[in-house]
């Protein structure tokens, strides 16, 4: 019958949704954006938790007295990405924050992907996809300009590096990843509170 045609049903639902959302512009799209944010934040929390466990396991075996490990601290391969290191700076950025998050996630795909045993590689990829969706939605809602669009494509290149991350001992990799995953989680929370503050901030 006419109504059983899936295309027609889909069209009707879309039309209805558009109608409802045009009547209540504040209600519909913003709510789903908050929902998206919650999901990516949850995912980033899981990723950070996993990275902490990995590093903790490593440290407990190889470097028990980590506080006195010595002055030498190797740089992370993401050190070239400028990230806000305090609350004020982080709050000042919105668009740049999204860009930073995506850059970090893109940068971590390579070194972790190679190690299939670590499921974090997949988590990084999934999180990146989620954050891209969030960014697209924010752009759709006019909250963001087009500066970030270059990072949305799945083939976005990692920042040019000299392959130095391959020289990392596992400890450094885990240490750097733990820190960056914490950054991503925190930045996402800040972004959410800036974008949709009425939903749990």
């Amino acid at each position, binding site marked *: 019958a006419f109504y059983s045609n899936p295309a027609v049903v889909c069209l009707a639902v879309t039309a209805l949704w558009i109608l409802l959302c045009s009547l209540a512009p504040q209600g519909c799209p913003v709510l789903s954006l908050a929902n998206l944010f919650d999901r990516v934040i949850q995912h980033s929390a899981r990723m950070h938790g996993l990275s902490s466990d990995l590093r903790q396991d490593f440290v407990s075996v190889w470097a028990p007295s980590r506080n006195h490990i010595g002055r030498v601290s190797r740089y992370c391969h993401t050190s070239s990405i400028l990230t806000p290191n305090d609350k004020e700076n982080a709050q000042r950025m919105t668009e740049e924050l999204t860009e930073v998050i995506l850059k970090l996630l893109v940068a971590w795909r390579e070194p972790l992907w190679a190690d299939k045993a670590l499921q974090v590689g997949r988590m990084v990829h999934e999180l990146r996809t989620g954050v891209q969706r969030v960014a697209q939605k924010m752009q759709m809602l006019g909250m963001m300009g087009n500066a970030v669009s270059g990072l949305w494509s799945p083939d976005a290149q990692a920042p040019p590096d000299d392959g130095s991350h391959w020289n990392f001992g596992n400890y450094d990799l885990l240490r750097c990843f733990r820190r960056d995953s914490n950054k991503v989680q925190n930045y996402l929370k800040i972004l959410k509170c800036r974008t949709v*503050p009425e939903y749990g901030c």
Partner: protein
Amino acid sequence: MTLSTRLKRLVGWALVILISAVSHNSPPGKPVLKQCHSPDKEIFTCWWEPNAHDGEDTTYRLLYEKELTIGILECPDYHTAGKNSCFFDKNHTSIWVDYFLTVVAINAFGNTTSDVYKIDVVDIVKPNPPENVTLWLELCEDIPTIHVTWNSFNIGTKCGWITPKYQLRFKKVDSKWNIKYVGEQTQFSIYSASPGKLYIVQVQCALDNGAWSEWSNTTFIQVPRSESKQHIWILVSFSAILLFAAVCIMFIKKKRYTNKCCLFHSIQQWLLPPVPGPRIKGIDVQLLKNGRSHEATRALLINHGFPWNGMPWKNQAEEYLLVRDDNKLLNEDQKHTHGKMISNNCHSKPNINNQLNVHNSMNFKEEKTILDDLVDTSQSELVNELNYVNTMKTDTAFSIDTIYVRNVKPVENSRYVDIQRQDVDMEYSTVREPMLFPEKQNKVINRQQERLPYDYTRVKEVNGDMLLLQDPSFRNNTQNTDYINPTPLHPVTEKVHECAESLNDGYVDNPHTHNVK
């Protein structure tokens, strides 16, 4: 070692000790950095511990290096956090950056540097305990509830910089602590608090994934005794007295009337009257006892008619295979329901029939179906019996699919089993309204659906084109000679006609009449 060498050593040590004891002219001992904490992920403080032997004139300086920063920096504030501490304010605090701290102890004779202490501020977050923990009591229908609230951690929460989470612990005096995770809320309720007890409550908080703070100051609350409980006791005791009085009165009354019987029997008779014996209407027990049974039964017959309407078996007009506990009944009913069994020729379910017939001569266990036996005995030949032809699927004359009896389990309150089907379009379901005729025969089906027992399997959709053929390999099976001889594959059309004919009657033939061997 010669004596002189030993003596020399001894003298040397003595001199060293003497010198160090007499004068303070030595560099200070090595200080140790104890800990660093950040209460809100925006500032932090570090404390060190000087060496015990250091004099009063020793000064300490904290020097540090920062990741991504060139140069050695010195502590910006030695005083805010007290003695032997260094306070880093917002301007000097960076998160996700490694700090390499050292403390140098300096006196007139030299300086000593501690070991390098590396920290990242995000890892040293430990907040202060929550403040203003408030308790208040709510009495809801005499059930006391303690509500706890406290001030939320405000710095940095509104913008998402930190996410505080809380944990609470409470206990009655002289019992163990009860720790409850609260989450991000700043209130908690303790339900069903014990009346008349003193409760102690404490709260602590943590930021993000950081360490838990110290427990807050102890707060107490006294839960008042429940007044209503006293009322209840009065009520209970009063009613007990009343009951006792009633029993006594009863007893006294009873005693008046029954002269001989003892007290116990009289009470027993009053409390537990005897169960009346069975009595059939119309039958005089005395008559039967006297041996005049024919008179008794005549009375019965005349008065009520025979057979009764309340016959247990409703299925006089039962039209299907009955699974019973004993063979005899099955055979008898088969006789009654002549012509109402499925014909072998129809092949809609001949094999099941065959199995039933086979098992007529076997002993049934109670509550067990034939198909249960099939599964339980785990004879694969029996499983192969249930072959099924589904001609709907293909355009060719017929194709053979196989139904395997799997996961057969008796359905509660019925004596049928679930047959799980494999690869067949048909669906079997558990039996409540068994239906063995194709849906095309609507008249037939309606009648049958009304009165069927719970003893049948159900075919959801039986197409007249379908045949049930036996596995040809079965022919070679000599173990179960009670099965009917396997029939060769017949063309579809012939069977359809047979089926149609037999089905149109609304009946199918009794397999017995087909000489099942």
